[in-house]
C-alpha cells in the first residue's frame, strides 16, 4: 500500500481524473473531498462489504416465506 502524508487543504491525484482533497482533520476524523468522473462510483468500503455479505445471505437463505411473498405480490397486482 502506498502511504502518503498530507495536511488539510492538500490534494492527491489518482490517475488522470480522480483527485482527493483532505478538507479537514479533527478529533480522529478526516473529511475528504473527491473529484471523479461520473462513471466512477464512490462509496464507503463498508457498503461494498455489506453487499457481498447480503449476497451471501441471499444465496444461503431458505425461502421459507416464499409462499407468503408470492401471495402478497399477487394481491398487490390485483389491486
Amino acid at each position, binding site marked *: 500500500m502506498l502511504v502518503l502524508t498530507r495536511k488539510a487543504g492538500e490534494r492527491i491525484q489518482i490517475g488522470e481524473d480522480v483527485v482527493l482533497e483532505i478538507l479537514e482533520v479533527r478529533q480522529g476524523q478526516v473529511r475528504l473531498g473527491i473529484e471523479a468522473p*461520473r*462513471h466512477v*462510483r*464512490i*462509496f464507503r468500503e463498508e*457498503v*461494498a462489504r*455489506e*453487499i*457481498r*455479505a*447480503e*449476497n*451471501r*445471505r*441471499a*444465496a444461503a*437463505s*431458505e*425461502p*421459507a*416465506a*416464499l409462499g*407468503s*411473498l*408470492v401471495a*402478497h*405480490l399477487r394481491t*398487490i*397486482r390485483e389491486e
Partner: protein
Amino acid sequence: MATTLESRRFGSVPLTEEAIVRFSEGLPGFEELREFLLLGPPDLAPVQFLVSLEDPEISFPILAAQLCLSDYAPDLDGAELRALGVSDPSALAVYAILTFHHECERVTANLRAPVLINPSARVGRQVTLGDSTHSLRHALVGG
C-alpha cells in the same frame, strides 16, 4: 453442454441457451460464478431465480425492482449502460436480489445494488449505486 441443470432446490431443470445470462465480473461475494440460468417457475411468479451453472446449489431469488418499489429509478450512467451493450436504460431488465431472513417471516430486497440484465445480449451486472437513498434491505414482507 448439458441440457439439464441439477440442483437440490429446483431438481432437474431444462437448460436453454436463451435463459443463460453471463456476468463477466460475477456477483459481489461470488466473483468466480459467471453464468446463471434465469429461472422463473410459474408457480412462484413473479419471483425468479438466478441459478449458478458453475455451482447449481447457489441461487439468488430475484424480483423485478419495479415490483419492490414502483417508482424505482436507479441513476445509471453511460459507461454502465455501454458495459451491458445498451444505450437506453429502458432496454435493461432491473432486478433486486431478495433475502429471506430465517428468524422471522421477513423478506427484503436489495435496492442499493440492483442486478441489471440486457435480455437480448443475455449479459448482466450487479451494480452498487453511489446514491445511498436506496436501501440494502428494502422491506417487502414483515416490515
